[in-house]
């Protein structure tokens, strides 16, 4: 553990918040909506393509 930890790497998610991802039907969803109410754990996965 700890090898990938970068405390100073990214402090704020302001830029990320404006980006969109696609749901299963291909509809864009703004990333910032995920942490508007509750803390979000975003797990970026390499798989399914």
């Amino acid at each position, binding site marked *: *553990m700890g*090898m*990938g*930890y*970068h*405390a100073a*790497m*990214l*402090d*704020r*998610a*302001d*830029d*990320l*918040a404006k*980006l*969109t*991802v*696609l*749901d*299963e*039907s*291909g509809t864009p*969803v703004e*990333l*910032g909506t*995920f*942490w*508007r*109410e*509750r*803390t*979000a*754990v*975003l*797990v*970026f*996965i*390499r*798989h*399914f*393509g």
Partner: protein
Amino acid sequence: VQLHRDIDQLTAAGADLILIGNGAPHFIAGFRELTGYQGPIYTDPSLATFRAAELQRGVGKTLDPRGIGKGIGAFVRGHRQGRTQGDPWQQGGVLVIAPSGDVLWHHASGRPGDNASIPEIVTALGGERPAAERHA
């Protein structure tokens, strides 16, 4: 599946787990079938969010087009790649983001098998670390 326990722990710590992949949207259904995961899952074939999340160092190698093709082929055949017997949860990285917009925790996976552990994430959320820490 360990993941279900992990999700329960994160929820108890006051957070929502959201998966973001990078394949075509129609791959999501197959991923759900493969893993049994019912929670929120999205995809970003453009990889813009992966870059903005500063995971490029971690995912750069595996996102080589040849690597992607290999991954898809393996996925379709049901043979999952990776050191951990093809863990479909192999991460490009994890970000924990508070409603304030502060990034509480950031983990960029450097190689297959280098995944953030749930106990680490729960600790970042200010939750209790499980007594028996285990490897993700």
